[in-house]
């Protein structure tokens, strides 16, 4: 079936468009799609693939959106796409709508297209994928898998993916199963040849080798966290499965098996414990850290809710702990496979009573790696939980980032832990005594000394010598010392980062985590519009002095967040005593990763008002 009139043709573009794949969940499309993105990465072109997947094992629609940007914009672009690869009949109506005018709808034309799906302003390019697959492969499972590989081969012809890049990925993927290399390459070739046969010329959307990915790597934030935990010296990982954090523990285990198994004995210099629930997972982490091992857990919002009581114990009893929260869309079960930055307040003020927790906000896989390793030093140094807030977008999608680095001259900061010799020199050990005036006391680990250093760790009030007390003064002294420690904390935390800094700019944009790429792209857009702005990216809580200084020096301040309630703004207002009317918000919370277009739209009312007036925008994104 053909459209009734001829749609406009897109201007030829190179390395700057979006391809979206519409697949059926559980059909093996993920690996084919990943191969597509990786081939583009290997061609030296900046690429950012994102899975948009359902909470489902098999059958529901799932999408894979790949932005290709020679300018290096790695945030989600948003809006309609230039090329839709439609392999899922059930989502076809929506997928047709998602193509931009003049764009291409690539589909399996083994069966006729429903006439209701015909738009006259887009191009339909059909290839009989099912027929090609079925006539080349007998086994039904192989038919399904190779259909995915075949369309990648067709795309290689249509948009100019280097065939050698695809071949290289197949060889790497099946390095341990070399028998599978030839059939996969044949399937790619089949797709390529069939497309060439069917279409006289490739599309005006073309890829061309570039050199933008030198010294870059492509990986998921969760795997990077797992690797960071290995490098940071974690020995005990206790966790409970929950999307989107599960692959953190799996990443840790994978890398630990590669890097931490004693070659002589085969013994594991690590332990991964799948707990019965999140309460138990954090309990194990606290027990292990209490006993001097570095230990962490990974969870998502519902898990953080369950861990509240234990986090209060660790704060009050001063036990190190590392928690990686890969945030998803809340509240409650929310949208478990969609992203959000909405656990900020529950994490910052986790647990009942007066309690506050250290937070870290990585924005890239490289920062996931580095901050996870750092988190163990920070937790040991400050003897308190450290909660790292990543999100589904960062954790479960592959992102391009600078290659990972490790400085061999660095050594772990285990903080103030007394050994037997230290204890010998001390008249009386005071577990909660502020010896150094920084609010951080000295601790001991069980079994250190036969006579000295033992104490009873507890969540009940006690004096400086860990002796139980219900005396108000002693309780209050301890709470005030914890405040001194809190004031010490920023010294050990990563500083906020300013990337655009021009004294002449009156607009300052504050952002954190995965709003990074989209915010930077927005700043470029604003510069081109002649309205340049500065930015500050926050990496940790409690905030350093730099956050207040940034706010003070800008007439207008906007905070970009991926939640409804402007949670970071609340934290800034509350902790830095900032007038809330000084801070505007751009809020995005529909579960999709934030895009520059959305930020730009959100900024519009703020740019149109004079400094000092208040504006807040939220909207349903397209």
């Amino acid at each position: 079936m053909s459209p009734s009139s001829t749609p406009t043709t897109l201007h030829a573009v190179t390395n700057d468009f979006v391809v979206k794949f519409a697949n059926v969940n559980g059909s093996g499309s993920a690996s084919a799609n990943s191969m597509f993105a990786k081939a583009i990465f290997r061609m030296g072109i900046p690429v950012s693939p994102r899975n948009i997947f359902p909470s489902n094992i098999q059958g529901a629609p799932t999408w894979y959106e790949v932005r290709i940007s020679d300018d290096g914009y790695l945030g989600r672009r948003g809006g309609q796409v230039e090329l839709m690869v439609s392999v899922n009949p059930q989502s076809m109506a929506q997928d047709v709508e998602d193509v931009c005018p003049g764009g291409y709808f690539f589909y399996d034309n083994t069966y006729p297209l429903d006439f209701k799906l015909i738009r006259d302003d887009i191009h339909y390019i059909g290839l009989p994928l099912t027929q090609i697959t079925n006539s080349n492969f007998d086994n039904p499972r192989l038919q399904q898998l190779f259909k995915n590989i075949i369309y990648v081969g067709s795309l290689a012809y249509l948009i100019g993916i280097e065939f050698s890049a695809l071949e290289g990925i197949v060889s790497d993927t099946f390095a341990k199963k070399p028998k599978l290399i030839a059939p996969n390459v044949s399937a790619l070739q089949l797709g390529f040849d069939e497309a060439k046969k069917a279409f006289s010329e490739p599309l005006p959307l073309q890829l061309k080798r570039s050199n933008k990915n030198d010294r870059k790597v492509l990986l998921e934030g969760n795997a990077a966290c797992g690797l960071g935990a290995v490098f940071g010296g974690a020995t005990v990982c206790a966790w409970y499965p929950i999307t989107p954090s599960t692959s953190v523990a799996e990443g840790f285990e994978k890398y630990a098996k590669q890097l931490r198994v004693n070659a002589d004995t085969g013994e594991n210099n690590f332990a991964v414990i799948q707990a019965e629930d999140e309460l138990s997972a954090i309990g194990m982490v606290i027990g292990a850290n209490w006993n001097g091992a570095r230990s962490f857990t990974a969870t998502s919002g519902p898990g953080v809710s369950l861990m509240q009581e234990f986090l209060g114990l660790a704060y009050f009893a001063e036990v190190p702990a590392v928690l990686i929260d890969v945030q998803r869309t809340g509240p409650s079960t929310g949208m478990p496979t969609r992203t959000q930055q909405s656990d900020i307040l529950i994490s910052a003020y986790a647990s009942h009573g007066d309690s506050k927790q250290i937070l870290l906000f990585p924005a890239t896989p490289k920062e996931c790696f580095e901050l996870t390793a750092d988190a163990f030093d920070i937790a040991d140094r400050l003897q308190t939980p450290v909660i790292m807030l990543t999100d589904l977008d960062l954790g479960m999608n592959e992102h391009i980032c600078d290659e990972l680095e490790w400085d061999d001259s660095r050594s772990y900061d285990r903080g103030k832990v007394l050994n037997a010799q230290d204890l010998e020199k001390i008249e009386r050990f005071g577990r909660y005594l502020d010896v150094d005036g920084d609010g951080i006391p000295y601790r001991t680990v069980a079994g250190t000394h036969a006579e000295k250093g033992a104490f009873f760790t507890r969540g009940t009030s006690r004096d400086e010598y860990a002796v139980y007390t219900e005396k108000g003064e002693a309780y209050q002294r301890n709470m005030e010392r914890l405040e001194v420690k809190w004031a010490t904390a920023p010294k050990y935390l990563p500083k906020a980062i300013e990337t655009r800094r021009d004294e002449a700019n009156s607009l300052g944009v504050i952002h954190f985590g995965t709003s990074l790429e989209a915010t930077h792209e927005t700043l470029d857009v604003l510069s081109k519009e002649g309205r340049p702005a500065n930015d500050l990216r926050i990496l940790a809580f409690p905030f350093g002095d730099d956050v207040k200084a940034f706010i003070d020096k800008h007439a207008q301040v906007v905070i970009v967040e991926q939640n409804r309630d402007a949670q970071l703004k609340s934290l800034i207002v509350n902790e830095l005593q900032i007038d809330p009317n000084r801070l505007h918000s751009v809020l995005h919370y529909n579960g999709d990763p934030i895009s520059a277009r959305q930020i730009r739209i959100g900024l519009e009312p703020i740019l149109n008002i004079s400094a000092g007036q208040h504006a807040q925008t939220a909207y349903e994104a397209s």
Partner: protein
Amino acid sequence: MSFFKPNFRHPESPKNTLGLTTRAYEGGISTLCAGCGHDSISAAIMQAVWGLNIEPHRIAKMSGIGCSSKSPNYFLNKAHGFNSVHGRMPSVTTGANVANRELLYIGVSGDGDTASIGMGQFAHVIRRNLNMMYLVENNGCYGLTKGQDSATADAGSKNKKGRINPFESIDLVALALDLGATFVARSFSGDKEQLIPLMQAAMTHKGFALIDIVSPCVTFNNHAGSTKSYDYTRDHVQAGSVVDFVPVAQEITLDQIQGSTQNVELHNGDSVRLSKLSKDYDPTDRGHAIRTLLEHKAQDKLMTGLIYIEPESDNFHDTLNIPKTPLNSLKEDVLCPGKSALTSINEGLR
């Protein structure tokens, strides 16, 4: 409770092989009620550890919340302790134990802490066969909140306000047997002769060892009509076996034993000697143990002693395949793969 702890000790108090008297195993002054069963259990723990010739600081005392969980403060002052949160002692102990397998872990919990809020963690620490001694100081009620029924209160038992408990009780021993516990015992806080050797066997056992100890609450659950009172327990207790713990160095003599005896050798050569009331009872047969337990229950008898033991089993350390060197003592050179490893990882990510 008392407010004063005398310093005087008999100058000829016996010493263990470490040259220590029991004084080295004492703790702080108890704040529990006078006559509380838990204090007897604390005393038994001190005796048992002293008798095993273990240095106090090689022990970690773990607990949750409640009267029972306060008690680790009242024994072994030279050992670290961790009074965690309600019902969560098993998870904290699991983490601690995986971090340092060389210490001996004594978990002290209560019936509220274990059978209600902590039921999940209790079940799973058993499944993992964590190498620890888990004591339940079981009095059938919540003491610190003034005597509400707990989940181990027997159906038909009367509480202090005269209300009859309508709910079926949870038998922690039966549950532990069902979940695969490798050492299951029951005892009574008023029976030190039985309790101390049971504890010594439990601490020597490699794997999870439960001792469910009926420990009457003198303030809220020691009245007529309660099935967890001293009187009721004494009237209904029936020792399935009289237990003796025999260190490997000590010759086994049979002179004090009447009736049928059975010797179960532990992993390190120590053994548990059982003097059995019924010669048919085999504590290494889980099915038999469960059946016998149910028979006792049907006859309204409280079966005590060593109910089940599996002397050789893989505990959690074996399952995890972790080294003999405790994880908490591994140094950076072993833990951190370093820059060169990262270079090849980077290559794999292109």
